[in-house]
C-alpha cells in the first residue's frame, strides 16, 4: 500500500499553488462583493492545464486523471473555493461529453472547454429539487429531426458563463424517460434566467436556465435517447461529487491554516492561545478531520483512475468532507472568538463557503442512501 504522492503529483500541487496564490487573491474582494466569477482568469487557467486536466490530449486536454484533478481543486479551494466550485462543474461537462458524446461532439466541444474558450455547464436541478431525477419536469419532445425543450433549470453553476449547456430533460416516462442534450446558448427559445445571490461561494456564478419552445437538433443528443439518467448519475457520482468534496477539502485545509496561524499569534494570559489545551483540542479535531477527508478523497479518486466502481466511495468523500469543512470552520471561528465573525478575517468566508458545499452537488442524505445500501449488501439474504 502506498500513501505518498508521486513526484509528478507533488510538482503538480506546487505548480497549482503558485498559480493560485499569485492570481486569485487580487480577484477575491470583487468576487465577494459582486458575486461574479473572474472570467479573465479562464484562459490563464487553461494555459496551465486546469480546465483540461481530465480531458484527453487528443481533445486538447492534459489527461492527468482524477487524483491530479483533486490536487488541482484542493489547491484552488485552499485559496478561494469559488474557483473549484466553478471548475468542478466545468469538468462535469467534460466528463459527460467524454463518456457519452459522439466523436463529433467531442471534437466540437471538448477542445473549447480545455482551451478555456467557455465554461462547462451540466443542468440537472429544477425548482422542485435535484435529488429526484426521475421527477424532472423539463420536457424534450421529438418533432421531426428536432427536440423541443420546455422547462426551467435552477441553481445551475456557471449558467451565465457558458456558450452551451448540457441539459437533462424528459423524453418519456420513468428511469428510461430522461435524455441529455447539448444546448447552444444562442438557440432560439434558450434563455438565461435570474442570477442567484448566495451567501457563500459568492464568486461562483449560479443561475437559472429557461427553455421556451427551444428547438435542439437530434445531433445534440448525448448518448441514446433514454440514457439521460445514466449520463446524469455517472457524471454527478464520479465527477460532481468528487469535485464538491475536493472543493470542501480545499476549504478544510484553509480552515486548518487560518486556525493554526491565529492560535499562534493571538496572545492571552501572556502566551499564545495555542498553548492552551482547549485550543489544542480544537486544533487536534480539525487536523484529524482534514487527514480523514484527504484520505477519503484521494482513495475515491484513485479508484476512479483505476476504472473501479467508486460510487459508494465518492458518496462518502462528498458527504463527509462537506460536513467536516463546516464543523472545522465552526471550531476555527470559536478559536478566533469575536474576530471570527468579522469580515476582515478569512474564517467567516470559509464557514459560509463550507455551508454551500453541503447541499450542492447532492445532499448528504442522498449520498447516504447509496452508502447505506453498500453497507448492508453483505448481509442481504
Amino acid at each position, binding site marked *: 500500500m502506498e500513501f505518498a504522492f508521486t513526484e509528478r503529483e507533488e*510538482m503538480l500541487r506546487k505548480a497549482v499553488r503558485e498559480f493560485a496564490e499569485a492570481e486569485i487573491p487580487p480577484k477575491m474582494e470583487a468576487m465577494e462583493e459582486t458575486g461574479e466569477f473572474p472570467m479573465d482568469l479562464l484562459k490563464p487557467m487553461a*494555459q496551465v492545464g486546469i480546465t483540461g486536466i481530465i480531458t484527453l490530449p487528443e481533445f486538447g486536454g*492534459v489527461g492527468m486523471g482524477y487524483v491530479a484533478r483533486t490536487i488541482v481543486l484542493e489547491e484552488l479551494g485552499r485559496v478561494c473555493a469559488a474557483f473549484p466550485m466553478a471548475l468542478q462543474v466545468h469538468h462535469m461537462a467534460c466528463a459527460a461529453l467524454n463518456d457519452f458524446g459522439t466523436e463529433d461532439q467531442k471534437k466540437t466541444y471538448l477542445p473549447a472547454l480545455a482551451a478555456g474558450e467557455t465554461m462547462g455547464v451540466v443542468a440537472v436541478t429544477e425548482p422542485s429539487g435535484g435529488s429526484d431525477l426521475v421527477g424532472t419536469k423539463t420536457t424534450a419532445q421529438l418533432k421531426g429531426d428536432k427536440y423541443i425543450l420546455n422547462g426551467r433549470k435552477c441553481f445551475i453553476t456557471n449558467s451565465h458563463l457558458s456558450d452551451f449547456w448540457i441539459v437533462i430533460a424528459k423524453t418519456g416516462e420513468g428511469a428510461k424517460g430522461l435524455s441529455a442534450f447539448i444546448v447552444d446558448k444562442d438557440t432560439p427559445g434558450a434563455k438565461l434566467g435570474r442570477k442567484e445571490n448566495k451567501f457563500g461561494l459568492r464568486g461562483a456564478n449560479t443561475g437559472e436556465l429557461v427553455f421556451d419552445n427551444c428547438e435542439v437538433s437530434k445531433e445534440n443528443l448525448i448518448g441514446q435517447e433514454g440514457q439521460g439518467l445514466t449520463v446524469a448519475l455517472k457524471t454527478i457520482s464520479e465527477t460532481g461529487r468528487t469535485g464538491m468534496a475536493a472543493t470542501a477539502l480545499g476549504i478544510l485545509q484553509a480552515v486548518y491554516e487560518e486556525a493554526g496561524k491565529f492560535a499562534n499569534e493571538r496572545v492571552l494570559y501572556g502566551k499564545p492561545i495555542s498553548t492552551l489545551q482547549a485550543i489544542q483540542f480544537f486544533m487536534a479535531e480539525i487536523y484529524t478531520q482534514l487527514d480523514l477527508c484527504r484520505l477519503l478523497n484521494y482513495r475515491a479518486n484513485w479508484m476512479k483512475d483505476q476504472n473501479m466502481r467508486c460510487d459508494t466511495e465518492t458518496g462518502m468523500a462528498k458527504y463527509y468532507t462537506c460536513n467536516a469543512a463546516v464543523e472545522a470552520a465552526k471550531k476555527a471561528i470559536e478559536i478566533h472568538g469575536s474576530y471570527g465573525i468579522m469580515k476582515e478575517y478569512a474564517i467567516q468566508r470559509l464557514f459560509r463557503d463550507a455551508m454551500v458545499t453541503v447541499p450542492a452537488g447532492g445532499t448528504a442524505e442522498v449520498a447516504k442512501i447509496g452508502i447505506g445500501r453498500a453497507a448492508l449488501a453483505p448481509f442481504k439474504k
Partner: protein
Amino acid sequence: MLQEGTIMNKIIVCVKPVPDPKHWNKVSMDPETKTLKREGIPNIINPLDKYALEAALALRESHGGEVVLLSMAPPFAKTTIREGLAMGADRAVLLSDRVFAGSDSLATAKILAAGCRLIGDFDIVLCGNLSIDGSTAQICSQLAEMLDIPNVMHVVGLEESTESNLVITQKIENGYVRLASGFPVVLSVRKELNKPRYIPFTGILAAESKEITMLSNKDLCVDPECVGLAGSPTKMAGLEVRKFERKKEKLEGTVNDIVEKLVEKIYQCGVIEC
C-alpha cells in the same frame, strides 16, 4: 531581440536550489560550520533564476536553440531542477561532488565555468542577479571572467535589434543604460525583465522524460584545491544570532519619583518634544 531568422546555439541558464522562504522560520545556523542548517526545509528554484529561464525560453521561441539548465548542488536537487525542465528547458546538467561542498561564490563560479565549457557551444549564459539565500550577486561577473567573455548585470530588457546581437537594457542607479552585445555573453537578470510562466501541466509530464546529466569533478577536472571549503577565500569570521528583545528597566522610588523619572525618559526618547 535578434535579427529575424537568427538561429541561436545553446542558452545556458544557471539555477540554484534555495530554501523555500515560506519555511525560513525553520532555518537555523550551525555555530560549528557557520553554515545554514537546511535539513527538512523544502527547496525551490531561486526566484530570480526563473526570470532568467523565462528570458531563455522566450529567446528559444523566437530564435530556436537549446535551453540547458546548469546547477551545482547535491544530488537531491534533481527534484527542484526538474521544475525548470517542466517550465520548458530542454535538458539539465547537475554538477554534484563532495569536493564542491562549502564552495563560496568564487569556487562556485569556477565549477559553473567548467560546466559551461563542458556543455560548450553556447551563445548566452543567463543567471538571476542574486540568490535569496546568499545574496552575494557575484556569480555572474566571476563566471564571465573565468569564461573570458563579457557580462552584463541588472538586465531589465532584451530588445529588438537590426543586427545579429543582443540589445540589453541595464538598470543602473538613477536610470538605465542600453547596450549592444555580441556572443557569447553572461547576463544576470532582475525581475523587471519579464513575468516567468507558470509550470504547465503538460510540462510536468514532459519533464519526466527529459535528461538530467549528473557530472562530478571527475568529469569537470577542476583542481580540488580550488573548490569547496579549501578553495574558498571567503572565510566566515564569526557568527552571531541576533536577539531582539524589548529594553526593560525598573524604576524605583515613590510614586512621584517614578512618574518624574518616567516623564524624563519619555522626553529623552523623543516621544514627546520639549
